[in-house]
């Protein structure tokens, strides 16, 4: 009896690590498998999440992860290190993973506005574009290092985030959404009409990141097998993604995350609790934009070419879909949503005609059936008085 109990206990303690491994295995099969296996895996994962949510398993998993944070993190890092290998070292599969990581970063940033504050920002693609263009211009036109480009992208998007956030101070709801739609449209029009930004031709020849004098665009050799250069970008992207997930989670459980939620619920009551609305709101936009800027810079230096078609309104909708599907205000959920949608999008390439139809239907179904997303937000935990 007792032995049995201990046994269960141990297994349960391993659950988080096991979960991470299962997730990566599923991801690998989803990326490398045929369309049908991908669909089955994704539907299975969705079902598992919803079931787990319903029966409190997800909550328990969260507690376990908290208990064994370092070990879970270790397993996670091992999985990321191995990711290029489980993806067969195939450059296309690796490419999907890199794009999933980049889009997840944008979605995480967007979550600060949609998920935390309930303000639907329709311009994440524009912000992603601002990051990409800034980084590209700094490197191509000024000849700076891509790392400088990344920093420049972060600074410029932080500033632009404040510009985009300014209307949020004065308006809410539909009006704010219309403002962001207008800004998204103006961004596209301005880029197209500005020769210096490449106009409709886009910007070719954006240099790749380099580390210790080694360009990340160089394919390597490992144990006698050539490894595509995408591997470098997987490590770069996922390192940043991991870091940004941690930042997002921290922000969520901090006073700022709480203030964002309070503003979503009721702005005026929030101000009667001593929340500085201006500061907190602008923070949401500038941090979210910086995330998008980081992603944009990664994207520019990864693909080496950017064109304005990649930052249009439809892309914004896809980002919104990612946040809604994954789970509002839950960084892990948002990341999972972004990865799922990126993978399925690649897998459905042959049905390109139906892509936007698919996204619109996913959006409607998620809103009607499960508006909180696959992995809804969790209760914040506070230190207890007795412990002190």
């Amino acid at each position, binding site marked *: 009896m007792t032995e049995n109990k201990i046994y269960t206990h141990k297994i349960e303690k391993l659950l988080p690590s096991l979960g991470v491994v299962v997730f990566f295995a599923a991801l690998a099969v989803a990326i490398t498998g045929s369309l049908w296996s991908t669909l089955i895996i994704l539907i299975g994962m969705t079902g598992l999440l919803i079931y787990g949510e319903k029966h409190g398993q997800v909550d328990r998993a969260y507690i376990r992860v908290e208990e064994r944070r370092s070990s879970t993190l270790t397993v996670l890092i091992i999985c990321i290190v191995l990711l290029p290998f489980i993806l067969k070292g195939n450059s296309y599969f690796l490419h999907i993973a890199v794009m999933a990581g980049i889009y997840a970063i944008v979605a995480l940033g967007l979550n600060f506005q949609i998920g935390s504050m309930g303000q639907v920002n329709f311009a994440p693609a524009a912000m992603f574009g601002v990051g990409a263009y800034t980084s590209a211009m700094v490197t191509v036109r000024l000849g700076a290092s891509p790392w400088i480009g990344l920093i420049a992208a972060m600074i410029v998007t932080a500033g632009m985030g404040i510009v985009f956030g300014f209307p949020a101070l004065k308006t809410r709801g539909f009006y704010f959404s219309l403002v962001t739609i207008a800004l998204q449209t103006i961004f596209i029009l301005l880029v197209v009409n500005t020769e210096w930004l490449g106009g409709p031709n886009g910007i070719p020849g954006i240099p790749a990141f380099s580390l210790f004098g080694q360009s990340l665009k160089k394919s390597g050799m490992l144990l006698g097998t050539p490894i595509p250069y995408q591997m470098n970008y997987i490590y770069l992207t996922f390192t940043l993604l991991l870091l940004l997930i941690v930042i997002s989670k921290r922000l969520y459980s901090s006073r700022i995350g709480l203030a964002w939620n309070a503003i979503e619920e009721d702005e005026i009551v929030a101000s*009667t609790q*001593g929340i500085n609305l201006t500061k907190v709101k602008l923070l949401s936009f500038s941090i979210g934009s910086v995330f998008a800027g980081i992603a944009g810079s990664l994207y520019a230096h990864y693909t080496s070419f950017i064109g304005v078609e990649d930052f249009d309104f439809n892309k914004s909708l896809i980002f919104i879909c990612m946040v809604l599907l994954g789970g509002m205000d839950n960084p892990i959920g948002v990341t999972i949503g972004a990865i799922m949608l990126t993978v399925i999008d690649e897998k459905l390439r042959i049905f390109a005609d139906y892509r936007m139809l698919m996204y619109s239907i996913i959006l409607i179904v998620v809103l009607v059936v499960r508006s909180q997303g696959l992995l809804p937000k969790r209760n*914040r935990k506070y230190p207890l008085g007795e412990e002190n």
Partner: protein
Amino acid sequence: MLLELSDVYTKYGQIPMLQGVSMTIDAGDAACVLGSNGAGKTTLLKTIIGIVKPFQGSLSYRGENITPLPSHKIIQRGIAIVPEREGLFPGLSVDDNLRLGAYYEKDKYALAQRKEEVLAIFPRLRERISQQAGTLSGGERKMLGIARAILANPQLILMDEPSLGLAPALVNEVYGVIKKIKEEKKIALLIIEQNAQKALDVVDRGYIMQKGSIIGSGSRDELSENEIVKSSYLVS
């Protein structure tokens, strides 16, 4: 002197609301404002915490002119408010709501300590700590509103009709708690009420408000004897 309003005028759109209101609250003082619907009582509270800005007159708190300050700055000076219809965040957990009460408190452990004290006063809230505030009953929500205000560790709590919409038994419970706060915590109170009977049990003195002006004031006993109060607010 804790709070002082001198000759405050406000407008709601084009409609004049407060018309030359002056009043003072001292530290540890408990006062009430009696008045009927539309007398401008709620506007008074909103003016104090800076949601409504006066176009004439000024407010000072502990000798500092707070008239031009934004709401959150005034709150941070040590004023808490228990709004009329609870003013909670129904979508957030009870715990989150409490945390928001002491939003500007950065010391987590001091906060945890204080939360323990508050939860000792409101044991029901402890049971419901991870529930959404919207799922609480009316009385519990009122309690949460008060608990949240205390958690801010203020010198002054403004209460907007604490008895409104509650069953008589609950009204007694709420006022019991208010009395306890006043006696144990030494927090100054400004209670706005139509239910003069209950309010006068707790406060030391009060004001009578009509059509945006203060038309009378006095100690608890004086008010109990006042004709207007008797005829209008003590009929229950």
